[in-house]
Structure formats: structure tokens, C-alpha cells
């Protein structure tokens, strides 16, 4: 029906919905309006999956129109096997966020919903953009609704957190803009596909790579530019944390695949050790830090950073393998692992933050010590919490296992010690997650506040159950996802292993 401009609809429909909400305001049923728009967007995004042709790496659902002709900037959209699942993740998570905020958000609900709908459209734009300036515009625009969400509906220290969030991410992206302009001067085009093919010398490649590393590394976030994330999460309302962890972090990983690896393959190869070092530090160092957190949200935020370490590790472990064995055989597993980890982390971290939100709505604290014995009063909630916690520890049968398993297998191919350090997550990840479960969920009823808890209602059950469904589905049968991503990721490997040097 809308095949021709489906992506445009997915970008602009929620944005229009958000604008309508701004005009109608709180008096005119803001929640149902937001619900209708988010569900409609989600339903419309399903044909992306069903009509997607997994054979070949070409862009699909392409739209192309001139935008700023004097600079050859185009309104150019399209998706391949890498971006398509991420768009679906975004449209799905947004529906959950609207439902999750239904009763909880009492302050300016119309604007709250509006911010999330607009953010949904912008993030879809980030994943669909095939013109680098269009990408950059969406990439930066995304900060605004997030800035507002934390700044208005956030906790006590929200101003510090928003400024930190904004400056950190903005600092990252300005360098990227310089790189894009430089590549325009070389390719005479802003099209991402043209950047993929343009020849670049080693020095420019290194500089471009570093600018991308800062831009996307902050987003992921990678150690040592991660410290904005725990603050942002702690201050953000539940919905903000969910979209941040589940979707926005993925833009960093996506950027590495779409920009760094194909555009500057030689520099990526040269500096892969740096990214691998940063990823392993994220896995080990951040894991230990997560262990000693007293705030549930902080703990999950640090655990997010550790899990995202597997994404970047999976992407860049490609290069030492090629250097060691002389062929890219087997490296696809690492990229697949990284991508599956991104999708899986979207479900799991989203679920974890929603669970914390469920507790916070009842007890108004996130301090672990304030809890204890929740399972005695909320058995169904405890069941979901333990499931998501187990997924967070990478238990086979849940989605958390798939990506980590693939990445650890691939890392062994590169080097024993990379695999060794990566695999320590089995122990550290289990330690901080299960200790959290022990202190919050299990035990005797700790105090009167816990004794007064009521189990999750229908609305909360629907949200958690739908996430549980995907966590299990992806864990038990990842093949459908792996299948759609296969050719596109194989193409990235081909680009990343083809030198751009030598004019």
C-alpha cells in the first residue's frame, strides 16, 4: 500500500502525532492519541520485515529526492538487513513506553508522549538515512527530545545529568561533521554509498576513524567515555531510560557498521586493537564497578555498558582474525554476534529498566537496601524479574546468550586472551545480577513498605510479557534474525577487508 514511501511514513507519522499532541494538550485524551500513533507506526513497520528481501545487501524501500541541491544533499532513505531490525526494535519499544507511561506520568502527559513520538520518528530517520547530512541532522536532532525528557520528567539532579548528556554526545558528533565534510570534498557527494567507495589516504583515514570513534563511542557508550550514561539513567524517567538503553545506544553500534568499517577500513584495521582494548575494559572493568552499585538503575546502566562491550568487540575482532589467518573466514559470526547482542540488549535492558520502574512507582526509591523479599508480595513480578536477570547473565535459551556466545567463539579465533577476558562476563555478569536479585527479590519481607507492595497489574503484565516473549524467542530461535542480517553483514566484511589506499 505504502511501499513507495514506507520509510518516510515511519519517520514522519510519529512526528506528526507528536506535534498534534503538542497542540491538543493534556485536556484532549493525550494517552489514547499517543497510543494510536505508536501502534499505527509499529503496525506499519511490520511490512519492513515481511516484504524484506534477505538475499543480497542492496538498500530496500529506497526513497530519493533532492534536498539542498547546491551541495548535492539528498533526502535519501533506505534500509538493509542491518538497519531494518533496528527500526522494528524502535517502533516496538515506543509502544511499550507509551503504555508504561500511561498512569505513571501525571505531569504534562501530552508533552511527555509527544517527546517520545517525535524521538521515535527521528531515530527511525537515523537508521533509514542514506545521505550523511540527513543522517547527521537526525543524529543531532535526537538529542533534543531526550534532553527535554530528562530535564522535565527527571529526578532531583536532572539538570546536571542533562547537561552532561548533551555536552558529551554533542562533543562526540561535531568531529564527525568535520569528517563528513572532508569526505564530501573527496567524493563530491554526501551519499553514504559514495563515502563507502571513495579512496582515502592513511592519515585522513586515521583522523576520520578517530572522529567516528569519539562520536559513536560516546553513544555506545564505550569506556572511558561512558560516565554520562549512569547519570542520565538515574535521572531519567523510566520511559527515558528504556528508550536510551534499548534503542539510542544501538545508534553507536550501527554507526561503526555503517560508517567506520566500510568508509575507513584501513584505519579500522590499524586501530582495531584500541577498540578491542576499550571493549574488553568495558566488559571487565565496568563489570566490577556494577558489582558495587547501591542504586538499581546505576547497576543496570553499568551492566549495559559491559554488554555493549560485546557489540564493539564482535565488530572489531574481525581485524586481528584477518591479520592472523589471512582470511575473513569465520568473522561473520562476530558481526552477527554483535548485531544480535544489540537487539537482545534492546529487549533485556528495556525490560530491566521497566522492572525497576515498576518497583520505583510503588516504593519511590531505587536503593537496593530499601528492598528485600519482594517475591513474597509480588510473585508474578518476581518471576519476570528473575527471567530478565537470567537473560542479563547470558543464560542459554534467552536472547542474552546468543550474542555473547557468538562473540566469545569468534574472539578465540583472534586470540586466546581476548576470549578469556570476554568470557569472564559469565562470572562477573552473573555475580552482579544475581546479587541484585538476591537482595531485592529473595529473602524475607524486609520492611513495612515491602509488605505493602501489590503485584503487577494487567498493564504492567502486558509490557513485561511481550518483552519476555521476544527474549525467549530470540534465544531459542535466532535464525530468522540472523538470516535477514546475513548478506548485509557479509557485505560489510567485504568492504572492511578491501583496502582504500593507493590512488
Amino acid at each position, binding site marked *: 500500500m505504502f511501499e513507495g514511501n514506507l520509510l518516510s511514513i515511519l519517520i514522519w507519522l510519529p512526528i506528526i502525532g507528536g506535534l498534534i499532541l503538542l497542540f491538543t494538550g493534556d485536556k484532549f485524551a493525550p494517552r489514547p492519541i499517543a497510543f494510536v500513533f505508536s501502534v499505527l507506526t509499529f503496525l506499519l513497520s511490520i511490512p519492513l520485515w515481511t516484504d524484506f528481501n534477505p538475499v543480497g545487501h542492496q538498500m530496500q524501500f529506497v526513497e530519493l529526492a533532492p534536498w539542498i541541491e547546491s551541495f548535492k544533499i539528498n533526502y535519501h532513505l533506505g534500509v538493509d538487513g542491518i538497519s531494518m531490525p533496528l527500526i522494528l526494535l524502535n517502533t516496538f519499544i515506543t509502544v511499550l513506553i507509551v503504555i508504561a507511561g500511561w498512569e505513571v506520568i501525571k505531569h504534562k502527559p501530552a508533552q511527555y508522549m509527544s517527546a517520545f513520538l517525535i524521538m521515535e520518528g527521528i531515530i527511525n530517520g537515523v537508521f533509514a538515512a542514506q545521505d550523511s547530512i540527513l543522517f547527521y541532522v537526525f543524529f543531532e536532532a535526537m538529542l533534543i527530545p531526550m534532553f527535554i525528557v530528562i530535564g522535565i520528567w527527571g529526578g532531583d539532579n536532572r539538570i546536571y545529568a542533562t547537561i*552532561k548528556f548533551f555536552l*558529551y554526545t554533542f562533543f562526540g558528533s561535531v568531529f564527525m561533521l568535520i569528517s563528513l565534510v572532508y569526505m564530501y570534498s573527496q567524493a563530491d557527494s554526501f551519499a553514504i554509498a559514495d563515502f563507502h567507495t571513495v579512496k582515502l589516504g592513511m592519515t585522513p583515514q586515521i583522523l576520520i576513524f578517530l572522529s567516528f570513534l569519539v562520536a559513536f563511542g560516546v553513544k555506545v557508550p564505550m569506556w*572511558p567515555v561512558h*560516565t*554520562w550514561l549512569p547519570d542520565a539513567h538515574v535521572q531519567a524517567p523510566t520511559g527515558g531510560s528504556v528508550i536510551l538503553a534499548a534503542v539510542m545506544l544501538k545508534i553507536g553500534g550501527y554507526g561503526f557498521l555503517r560508517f567506520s568499517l566500510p568508509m575507513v577500513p584501513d584505519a579500522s584495521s590499524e586501530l582495531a586493537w584500541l577498540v578491542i582494548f576499550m571493549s574488553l575494559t568495558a566488559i571487565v*572493568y565496568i563489570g*566490577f*564497578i*556494577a*558489582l*558495587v*552499585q547501591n542504586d538499581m538503575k546505576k547497576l543496570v546502566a553499568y551492566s549495559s555498558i559491559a554488554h555493549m562491550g560485546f557489540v564493539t568487540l564482535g565488530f572489531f575482532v574481525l581485524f586481528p582474525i584477518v591479520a592472523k589467518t589471512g582470511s575473513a*573466514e*569465520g568473522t*561473520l*559470526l562476530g558481526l*552477527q554476534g554483535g548485531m544480535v547482542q544489540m537487539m537482545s540488549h534492546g529487549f533485556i535492558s528495556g525490560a530491566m529498566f521497566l522492572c525497576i520502574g515498576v518497583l520505583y512507582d510503588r516504593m519511590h526509591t531505587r536503593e537496593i537496601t530499601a528492598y528485600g*523479599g519482594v*517475591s*513474597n*508480595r509480588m*510473585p508474578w513480578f518476581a518471576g519476570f524479574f*528473575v527471567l530478565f536477570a*537470567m537473560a542479563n547473565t547470558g*543464560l*542459554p*535459551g534467552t536472547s542474552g*546468550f546468543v550474542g555473547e*556466545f*557468538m562473540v*566469545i*567463539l569468534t*574472539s*578465540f*579465533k583472534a586470540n*586466546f586472551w581476548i*576470549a*578469556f577476558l570476554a*568470557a*569472564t562476563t*559469565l*562470572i562477573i555478569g*552473573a*555475580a552482579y545480577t*544475581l*546479587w541484585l536479585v*538476591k537482595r531485592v*527479590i*529473595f*529473602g*524475607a*519481607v524486609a520492611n513495612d513498605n515491602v*509488605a505493602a507492595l501489590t503485584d503487577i497489574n494487567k498493564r504492567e503484565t502486558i509490557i513485561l510479557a511481550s518483552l519476555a516473549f521476544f527474549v525467549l524467542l530470540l534465544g*531459542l*530461535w*535466532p*535464525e530468522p534474525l*540472523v*538470516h535477514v542480517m*546475513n548478506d548485509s553483514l557479509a557485505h560489510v566484511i567485504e568492504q572492511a577487508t578491501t583496502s582504500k589506499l593507493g590512488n
Partner: protein
Amino acid sequence: MESIYLAIPLASLIGAIIAGLFGGIIGRKGAHTITILGVGISCLLSFVVLKHVGFDGHTFYGDVYTWAQVGNTKFAVGFQIDRLTSMMMVVVTFVSLMVHIYTIGYMQDDKHNWPEDSRGGTNSYQRFFSYISLFTFSMLMLVMSNNFMQLFFGWEAVGLVSYLLIGFWSTRDTAIFANMKAFLVNRVGDFGFLLGIAAIWTYTGSVDYKEVFERLPAIEHITLTILPDTEWMLVSIIAISLFVGAMGKSAQVPLHVWLPDSMEGPTPISALIHAATMVTAGIFMVARMSPIFEMSDTALSMVLIIGATTAFFMGLIGIVQNDIKRVVAYSTLSQLGYMTVALGASAYSAAVFHLMTHAFFKALLFLAAGSVIIAMHHEQDIRKMGGLKKYLPITYWTSLVGSLALIGFPFFSGFFSKDLIIEAVHAANIPGSEYAYWMVLLGVFVTAFYSFRMFFLVFHGEERMDEHTKSHLHEPAKVVTWPLIALAIPAVLTGYFLDPMVVGDFFDGVIHVNENHPAIETITHHFHGSDSWIVNIFSFVGHGLMALPFWLAMAGAGSAYYIYMKQPSIAQWGYDKLRFIYTILDKKYFADEFNMAVFAGGALALGKGLWAVGDRFLIDGLLVNGSAKVTGWFASFIRRMQTGYLYHYAFSIIIGVLAIMSWLLFGANNV
């Protein structure tokens, strides 16, 4: 047949799902009916498969569905049904079925185990049935797997269920500490296991058993340099990594610490998971991977030494335990050590044979202990028991059968399997086999001593319980006693399968033994003196009666009788005089203290240090907030220059003009 293979794990899974999610609707009776039906179907079909595979000689190897296809590697969910699998399936489902039935009696009054303010007790009965059925499913997936991915799935899934069941009474602090400890210690093992799988995939490009085994010759001579200047055989690294996984799951020293604590869980699961089946997964795995282990004498030697150490030293702890379940738990550790020793001696079939006999007699002993616990109103201290023989006749006689099987009394199953292991270690030629031989030999005395110490203290002698308990003592319901009887039968009879299982050709083509590892070959040669199996069995028994192990066992049981029934002063004397040794044993060699201080304490201290210094001081303090401060200072400095006074600006202009002129006049000339 293929649909039968699929139906076996699924029957248990469906029961688990229904009882777990709809327990409130179907009620207690519905939950135990549906799960017992499910496991019953699994058990029945497992026997069909055993006949089909074990006796008719059919095997199956194939995939159910593709989990993920990445490049040339296919990750699938599939089954390998051969004799080893079918034997394990029967053991798992049969013991599980007995435990399911037993649970009806054991968990009847579970509501009393939950505090008033907890909703946990509402459907705890149904939830328990759901968990043990889920366990059966997971264990079946583990043993039926045809690839490492699914093996790892089953491996961790049984760990999950074990976690949920150890912490079943989640309001008890000791229970939720024990389950976290169990999961984390197992994760240490799984860490090694996963590295082993990664190594296998890296060098063979596959995780499918058949393909991996086919490609083994190609990697036989590959060496790796992990640390500078040290070359390791790849196969040794793979085998040792896999064995680390087995050490976690099968509770071998030093990863044994979780198993005694797991006794916090309800007794039925101690029998099913922490004695009969899950803890033997490591033994099963090594036997399944025999082609890999056979390639590395280094790994076998390690297996042998760790197994022997566990067998003897864990048995010693059993002597000083006073909790009825803990005695049996240390006995399990020690027996797992025996199985591991057999693996190290390349006597895989003997290990698997002992696994089978042990599953029956140890499940029996645990369930009997549970029966005693029910009768004693959840008193577990054997010092407060005594003389229970006349109150609990069925429990008494079945316990006796179990104990005799455990100590290896002739004609009971344990006699055959344990004797074979000792013989095999004696015939082994791997480094460390001398040490292992003495350990398992002395272990026989220890086993008999702690087993009959407990037996006499519980069932004989003076009645040390209080009057109230005594007045209520009676044999528990039939759902409890029947499973005891049903397990007592295989606890005696399974020993007679030593031919064909160990000395016959039952495991031909399943378990692979290199020619330079002669243990089993030697035994087989001795055994087949006559064409008649009855003559062979009797000559085996006759040979056993002459041998040292039998007399050691008798000495152990005899001294237990003398010390605890005739001369209790000796026990007191030993306690007083050997206080030093007693303390070491009572503190379990201080392993828990060490782990808590070094690993748990160390990790927390490290985490706190990294957070305080790394994140908060260096990154946030210096870099992030520091750069904000520097920007602030710079801005305030610049701001100070914008004073707005004309004479300030005029003064700067004059200074500037002077500076530029000096540079043009003097500086530029020198260039």
C-alpha cells in the same frame, strides 16, 4: 522413531509449563498429575528407546531445527541417540519419576515452610512440580544433544533449575546464599567450558559432535603459545577447559564448595539433582568427549588427580558431619570423585557404569533420608535420632540396601562398579595413577565408616529424640515409601550389567579408548575367563572377596559399629585428642573462608576501588568535570579582560602596536 525422541523431552517440558503458569487454576492435584504424566511418558518412551538402541542396535543422529546458520557454521538443535544417551535417558527419567511421586508426600505441608506475610507458599507445591519437570527437560536436552551449543544450553539450564530449587524456600537467608553460590561457582566452571567450546569451534569450524570428532586428527599436533615461551598442545587446552566445566557441575575440588550448601533445597531435589543426575553431567560429558580426552595424557592426568583428591578428602569430611543430608552430600562428592578417577584412567565405561549404579543407590539414600526427616518433623541432626528401625521398617531396610550398595558390599550394585574403578586405576599408566590408586583404596574405608556411622546413629542404639517427636514417629505415606522400594531394586540389580556395559561391547563406537591406555582392556581380559556370564560374575565376586577393597569396607563398617554402638568413648576420645584434625574437617579445609575472603572480598574491593578511582576520580573528576572547570576558569579569565574601560583597551592597543613593531624591526631581520 524421530517423533518419539522429540516427545521425550517435550512431554516433561509441557508438564512443567502447565504446572508453572497455570498452577493456580489446576490446583495441587492437577499439577502433580500433569507433571507425573509428562515425566511418566518421558520415562516410558526412554525405555522404548533403550530397547531400540541398546538391544536392537539402532542409532539416530540428526537435527530438529537450525538454531542459526552463520557462514559455514550451522548451529542446530538436534539429537544423538546412541547407547550412552539411551542409558542416561532411562536413569534420568526413572529417578525423576520416582522423585515426582515422592514429592507428593514430601511437599504436602509446604505451606508451613513459608512465613505468614509471604504469598510464596500459595502455589509453592505446584511451582515445585513445575521446576522438577523443567529440570527433567533440561537434563534430557543435555544428554540427548548432538552438538556443543545444545550441550551448553542443557548444561546451564540444569544450573538454572538447580538455582531455583536450592533457593526454593526463598525467605531463608541460608537458602538464597547457597543458590547464588551454587550458580556462581558453576559459572566458573562454565567459563572454562565455554572457552573449550570456543577452541573447538576455532580449530574445527564446527560445534557438531560428529564433524568435530572427524576433524580431530587434523588438530592433533597443533600447539599454542598462550604465555610467552610455553607451548601447549591444543588438544590439552581443549580437554582441560572442558574438564573445568565438568569440575563445576560435578563438584570436583576446588569447585566442590557449592554442593554441600545445596542441601538447603528440599530433599527430593537433593536426590534428583544434587546426587543422581545433574552432578553427573560432568562425568557424562567427559565420557561423551572421550575422543578428545584420549588425545591428551596431560588432561587425563589432571582428571585423575583431581578426582582422586575429591574421592578421598571429601569423604573424610563426611565423617564429622551431623546433618543427615550433609553426610549424604559429602558421600556424593566422594563418589563423584570415584567416577572422575575412572575417567582419568581412561575407564570411561566404568565411570558411566558407576554413574548409573550411584544414581539409583544415592537417590535411594537421599529419599530415605528425606523419609527420616519427614518422620522426625524436619529434624536433620543425627545426634538427635537413634533407634528408628522399629518405627520406620521400610525406610530402614531400603536404607540398608542403599548403604550396602554404597560401600560396595558383594552382590550389591556398588560392589561391581567401585571394584571396577579401583581395578582400572590399578591398571592405569597415566602419571598420578599411583597416588590415585591409594586415594580410592583408602576412600573405601572412609566410605564404609561414614555410611555406617550415620546408619547406626539413625536407626540403631538409644532413642535420643524428645518425647513429642517420638510419640508421632511413624512410616510416611505410600507415595514416599514406594519410590524407596522401586529404587532399591535397581540399587541391587544394575550391578549385574557390568557385562556388557564395562567389559562387553555395549559402548563400542560410543566411547573411544586409545590403545596406549590399557585399563579397561586389562580388566576385560581378566574377566572373560569363561563363556558363561554367571561363572564370570561369580569369579568376579570371588576375586573381589579376596581383594583389599572388600576388607577395607568391612573394616570401615565394623569400626563404625564398634565406635558408635559399643564404645562411644572412642568417638569422644578422638574428638578430644584429634581436635586439630577435627577442626580442619569440620571447617571443610577452610575452603569457604578462603573463597569468601579472597574471591568475594577481593571482587568487591576491586569494584569499589575501580569505581572510586577510575570512574569518579579520574574520568568524571579530572576529565569531565575537570574540563568543565578549565573552561569555566578560562572564560572567567577572558571575561576579566572585557572590562569596558576605554583606557584599558587603548593601553592594550599601544602595547600591541609596540610588540608588532619590535618584531618587524628586530625579529624579522634575523630570519
